[in-house]
């Protein structure tokens, strides 16, 4: 165990459960906590691989069960368009999420077969905005044009786009310029000097710490942030402060 460092890090991009195309071990909460200890992460919002790769409703129930009573983990549910009723009506989904202590919601539009900014998911995204629940989405699940359209359609919905890679700053810069509710997650935000460039241009309040673990190595994002050339206050903001401004982190370690 490495133990905590000077900065509180809250990971907005972690997953429980097995993965079908990479060996991440048993995907248990205990294994995730061990990884967090190794790299000094205090707390994490966690989704479950079953929510993405099996059934969102079953995966959501499972992740809530797995993090129950664990002060360092909070559930992140996955939502679907309400038309098929799989994750309930928008109101019922949001009410249940709140009852289960969910702090953020994920969408996988590419995997789950709908458009992020289309009309099918618009009602549930509006309900998330009203409830103060941010939406997390991986860059590979949509396009930056869809992200921008979604953000314009729901200007009070915080949207965090993670796992951007190293080839996308030309697209990100425009979207961040033209919106105020799009944020960038730091998992696989790999452009050389990109973190400092984004903070200098758009402010630390547009960056949300995430690791993408266990598929991605959490040592990447931790080292990238803490050995950045950002001042300590910006590191603290990216590490936890921005997320705390987007959702309620109360009760989390």
């Amino acid at each position, binding site marked *: 165990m*490495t*133990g*905590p*460092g*000077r*900065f509180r890090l809250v990971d907005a991009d972690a997953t429980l459960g097995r993965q079908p*195309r*990479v*060996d991440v071990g048993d995907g248990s909460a205990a294994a995730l906590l061990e990884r967090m200890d*190794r*790299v*000094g992460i205090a707390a994490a919002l966690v989704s479950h691989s079953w929510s993405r790769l099996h059934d969102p409703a079953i995966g959501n129930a499972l992740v809530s069960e797995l993090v129950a009573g664990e002060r360092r983990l909070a559930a992140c549910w996955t939502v679907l368009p309400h038309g098929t009723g799989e994750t309930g009506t928008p109101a019922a989904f949001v009410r249940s999420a709140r009852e289960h202590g969910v702090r953020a919601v994920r969408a996988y539009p590419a995997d789950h077969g709908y458009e992020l900014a289309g009309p099918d998911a618009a009602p549930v995204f509006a309900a998330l905005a009203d409830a103060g629940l941010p939406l997390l989405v991986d860059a590979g699940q949509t396009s930056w044009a869809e992200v921008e359209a979604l953000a314009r359609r729901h200007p009070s919905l915080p949207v965090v786009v993670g796992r951007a*890679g*190293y*080839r*996308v*700053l*030309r697209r990100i*810069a425009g979207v961040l310029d033209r919106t105020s509710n799009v944020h960038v997650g730091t998992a*696989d935000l*790999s*452009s*050389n*000097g*990109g*973190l*400092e*460039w984004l903070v200098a241009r758009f402010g630390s309040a547009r960056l949300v710490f995430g690791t993408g673990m266990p598929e*991605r*190595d*959490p*040592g*990447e*994002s*931790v*080292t*990238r942030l*803490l*050995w*950045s*050339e950002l001042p*300590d206050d910006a*590191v603290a903001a990216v590490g936890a402060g921005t997320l705390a401004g987007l959702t309620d982190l109360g009760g989390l370690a």
Partner: protein
Amino acid sequence: MSAGTLAGAVLDRRTPPPTVVDAHAHLGPYSLFFIPEQDAAGLVRVMDRCGVARTLLSSHLAIQCDAAAGNDATAAAVAAYPDRLAGYLVVNPWQDPVAELARWAGDPRFVGIKLHPSLHEYRLTGPRYRPVWEYAAATRCPVLTHTTTGLPYDDPAMVGEIAERYPDVTILAGHSGLFRAGFDDAIEVARRHPHVLLELCGSFMHGDEISRMVGEVGAGQVVFGSDAPFIDLRMSLGRVVFARLDEADRDAVLGGTMRRVLAAAGH
């Protein structure tokens, strides 16, 4: 340097002593995407921040478009920071390899050769690369080749084929096959050929895989590379800093192994 020291230095934002050798880096702009920091000064500044003593690099211009002009750029960067940077000479099989090797033969700014078969769309085992292998065998300089599992240009199996042909050449398998499904193949090639080293940069690398590689072939055949400024140095370095490795192995991966290779070549 101990892992505890390094990991602790990260968590406390401290700058560690400069001991790391980065065996795979680049320099300059790349047309496909925007890189906020891509010059030598910026690279050395981040090296200073992260305890990287020396970086071996080739310019993006050399690998992407024009080997001769790009090797000039590499040489200029090394001349500007002779104690911190060292060059890989890029040989493009379509741009007169013999002439380019002859132009820089014996120049101390270049300590190895860099090949990018998939970018140049020419197989690693092809005859246009023969002058490279002969040059490397004669000078003992290491050859860093990009590898991509499944591509017809630089699959790890091709590294094995070259290793059979040239047992005196140290070959760095850049990215170790690149994809996680290909790491097994790269490990197997390294296991059969002690002069093949697994180099660690790439978007799909993970500390768990680094630990496995070291366990399979030993830290003497595993070397850290960042791919900066393609990829931020800190993303790549963090995987090794926090990997489950004993301290002697981590030290070897982060510099000891590559120092041994360079010393054998007289650098």
